[in-house]
């Protein structure tokens, strides 16, 4: 039987843990709302860009087509971009991405392909470094930053575009948690290069659209922009997902702490009453002995 004092100490420590987890839950909830708004605000641009790309892509074919659109023509070197959070305590959020990335890498390597990894977010880097350290090149981290802006996505996109242009990588895939609902985030892989071209009906009757100055020039601007938008979308979805996952995890933790406090309090009261009873017995038997 643990002593009364040690029980009291444990109850207090669990109570303060509960305060921390419930505070983290509140913080995650308010961050989640902001992240969701940001993700929704970014959607119209991505949709319209997709439509425009669909119109343009059908008109460009052959060897003059830009690498970002059709790829380098090979399928040998794959670049994976696992998007994770910089902080933990969000349930299986980060581990899911790590595991999916690892599985993809294993599968590609079994097919004889070369895999390179550019982790976005510290947790993913730490996870993958244990097993796939030799494939990891540079990494990106937003640790200590309040929010992610479009400029961040643009910087990442520029690096990817440069690697593709230089022929260092052939296929680029981003692995991120798609925000499905607060309770569920779905680990998803999306190909960035070669650009997946959406099947859209052409806007003009007869399918003829005039392009100024010309298709090549517009695509040369549009494709890097599209890449940045796709990266931006993955970052925002992941940010929303992270907060959703953390909220759920912290909600569970708070509830568990509550259960634990209840159990400990019961033990504490039993121990206290046992003590009182014992003292009474001692007094009574002492009095009887006289």
């Amino acid at each position, binding site marked *: 039987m643990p002593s009364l004092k040690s029980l009291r100490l444990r109850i207090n420590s669990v109570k303060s843990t509960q305060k921390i987890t419930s505070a983290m839950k509140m913080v995650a909830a308010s961050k989640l709302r902001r992240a969701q708004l*940001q993700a929704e*605000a*970014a959607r*119209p*641009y991505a949709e*319209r*860009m997709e*439509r*425009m790309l669909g*119109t*343009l892509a059908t008109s460009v074919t052959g060897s003059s087509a830009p690498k970002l659109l059709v790829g380098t023509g090979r399928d040998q070197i794959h670049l994976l971009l696992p998007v994770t959070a910089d902080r933990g305590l969000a349930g299986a959020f980060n581990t899911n991405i790590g595991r999916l990335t690892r599985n993809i890498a294993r599968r590609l390597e079994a097919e004889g392909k070369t895999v390179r990894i550019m982790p976005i977010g510290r947790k993913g880097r730490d996870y993958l470094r244990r097993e796939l350290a030799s494939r990891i090149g540079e990494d990106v981290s937003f640790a200590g930053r309040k929010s992610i*802006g*479009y400029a961040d*996505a643009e910087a990442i996109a520029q690096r990817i575009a440069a690697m593709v242009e230089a022929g260092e990588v052939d296929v680029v895939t981003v692995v991120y948690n798609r925000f499905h609902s607060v309770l569920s985030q779905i680990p998803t892989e999306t190909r960035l290069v070669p650009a997946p071209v959406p099947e859209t009906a052409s*806007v*003009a009757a007869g399918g*003829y*659209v*005039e*392009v*100024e*100055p010309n298709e090549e*020039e*517009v695509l*040369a*601007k*549009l494709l890097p*922009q599209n890449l*940045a*938008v796709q990266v*931006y979308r993955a970052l925002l979805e992941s940010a929303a997902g992270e907060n959703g996952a953390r909220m759920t995890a912290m909600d569970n933790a708070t509830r568990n702490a509550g259960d634990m406090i209840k159990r400990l309090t019961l033990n504490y009261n039993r121990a206290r009453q046992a003590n009182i009873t014992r003292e009474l017995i001692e007094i009574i038997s002492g009095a009887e002995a006289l």
Partner: protein
Amino acid sequence: MPVTLEIVSPAKLLLSREVDMVVVPSAEGDLAAQENHAPMIVLLRGGVITVYDGGKAGDQFFVAGGFAEITGDRCTVLADQAVPVAELSRDAARARLDDAEKGWENADKQDIAVRDAALDRLLSAREEVRLAG
């Protein structure tokens, strides 16, 4: 008869409403979009989008570059950055111009793509400073 004008930046949808006519700063000269315009996709330079309602110039937006898609009944502007002209900040514009000038100085002028990109940024920043006053 109106055209549906939409101005979108990566961060948000800035404007979506029906207008009589809109003038966009295309890379090859200003372009007015009215209803039944032939379908077009154009590259934009840094400049001003002017909205016309009932024959009079209304709202004005500064765009730092981007794309516009024009069809018979709508005009969609995908701007890298879009701000109502009245809300342009002089200091921010100045800072951008300084950056662009530095970028132009350091740009590799032999590489046509790099040179053009730097030049576009510079011209767009100059336009912004001019508008910000």
